């Protein structure tokens, strides 16, 4: 059976090919070969710079889940309790707490999620 060329051109399959693959190309990212760079201001892991910190504990008070603990001169952050809201970064007036773009944080042990700065 021979189809008319016009029917093939208007068929659903050809329309989808034309609007999908042929128009946009391959959009799948090549993760993990190409690291996907998120935009500026992405809220990932909070990092505390011990040299700038003056141990005022404003960040620990501002944290809604109590993930930051300041014990004498040690700053402990429990990533397993952090909800990545950014309240600690806003509360610190020494700019010692920064929300970095680090988002790949999976670990095999629970204690791997407790970070000391």
């Amino acid at each position, binding site marked *: 059976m021979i*189809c008319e060329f016009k*029917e093939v051109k208007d*068929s*659903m399959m050809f*329309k*989808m090919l034309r*609007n*999908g693959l042929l128009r946009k190309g391959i*959009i799948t990212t090549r993760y993990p070969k190409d690291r996907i760079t*998120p*935009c*500026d*201001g*992405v*809220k990932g892991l909070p990092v505390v710079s011990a040299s700038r910190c003056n141990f005022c504990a404003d960040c620990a008070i501002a944290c*809604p889940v109590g993930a930051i603990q300041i014990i004498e001169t040690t700053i402990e952050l429990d990533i397993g309790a952090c*909800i*990545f*809201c*950014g*309240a600690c970064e*806003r509360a610190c007036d020494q700019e010692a707490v920064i*929300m970095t773009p680090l988002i790949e944080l999976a670990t095999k042990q629970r204690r791997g999620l407790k970070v000391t700065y």
Partner: protein
Amino acid sequence: MNVEMNAKMTKETDILDNLVYEDQTPQTHGADHSILDTLLTDLPSDVSSFIDSSEIEGNNIKVQVSKVNFLAFVAGLIKTRDMDLVSFHAVDERELHGAFRLYLLFSMDQDTFLTVLTDVDPSEPSFPSITSVVYAANWYEREIKDMLGLIPEGHPDPRPLVLYDSWPEHTYPLRKDFSWNTKVPTAPSIYHFRRVEGEGVYEISVGPVHAGIIEPGHFRFSVAGEPIINLEIRLGYVHKGIEKLSEQMMYNRGVFLAERVSGDNSFAHATAYCQAVESIAGITIPDRARYIRTIFLECERLYNLFRDVAGITLVTGFNPGAQMAYSMQEEMMQLNDCMAGSRFLRGAIRLGGMHKDLTQEVCQTIVGKIDVLEHDFNIFTDMVTHMPSLLDRTQTTGVITHKIAKDLDFVGPVARASGIDRDARRDHPYAAYPDVQFDVITEQNGDVHSRYLVKMGEIHQAMRIIRQAMEKLPEGAITVDINEIPEGKVGFSIVEAPRGELMHWILSGEGKPYRHKIRDPSFNNWPAIEQAVIGYNGNIVPDFPLINKSMNLSYSGNDL
């Protein structure tokens, strides 16, 4: 390709042209509230004789009646005026004046509200059920019974809503003598499902863990072969005790809790919470913050609607088209990342305004991205509305008639697809909505195809609002500080989330809410599924995933 298919395709071309558009100019703030002055005098004398006292506060009129006259008053009120039920909840005010208090909240036109208050004596913890006159009050009364132990007398279905299976009797979490972090012991109990008996009738039970990646809920079908005779749903698996948690969180922390009530409507919930607290504190936020909140709300609506449209397309079997729509959702979420640092727009709002400003660069990115997405979406719509197999599956499936939608008080796109003209952005304006033009899309048939068309129409309206808000964005500060939040005052706020209208109601205590009532749109709309699967010409079991996806309800927002 044969001649008949071509003919059918040309007939279906006109579907988009026949959408019904309601062209409404939105109300401005400070609208005429004269309805409040005449409301009480318009009531018949036998109904208004039940009122003990009344008070007008802003656009809300509060009326107090006693418990014995409650049912008669509400029955008379419903007959005289057309009102929508917004909430019906109870507060344990034994510490304040020695009794429980019930709040029944209705919304009327011209952006006005009516609250009916009744006191319940602790020695007789029961109240007359109003479900027989206000059908939508069904689940609200079951929740009051679960959470506070006040029994609705005469309720047709007094089974527990969220505290079933292993919860001991006489555990009432929202009472003030129950601490928020109590460890509750287990005690087994039996939950009775409605049974359908007959020859050849059997039950299919689905859940709580479903195939696919979705939240838990239990559905019990009574079927005879393929056609569904009855469906009963049991939710409450995701009950986390959010309302009780909110009572011990300071207002600043409460914003983060409100964001996590229903994950994909984060910004809408947080906006409603912030607006409720701001109305208690009596402050107005700066103009730039109002516009930025509007832009964020519409961006959230866009990614949710793309996801809904893609979900319906996927379940009818048209996978390539669905993946096109899912890619649009993904691009929207990456745009959210640039705007707020979070794909769900979390952590952007604060009491008194916004945390983060929109720079010139981000504004240009947003406008450019919206143009690209509109072009892509038009190609998608064009392809999908001419597809006979999709039309065959979605038309006349899962019909909800106008009468059922009105009686049971459905909200959101589900209600608009059944002909109910209700949209909180136009009826109770907030943020920058009084300053932008948009249409409210309604359809008349109430089937899956109507919901599909309503959602596609709303995508175009959302893009229109974003463009207008971007053009009119004023300069200035983005936040004001809130110094003091007075105690003992009530504030509530209604916001149109992508799923429908949601409400946060707060009675303020010392630095934290005394009682926080959240009404997610899914709480109103879940009973719709039980009605839709029966429809007017019956539906078969494979139609159920399509109906479920076309409504896209939140389990977490319902159970709280």
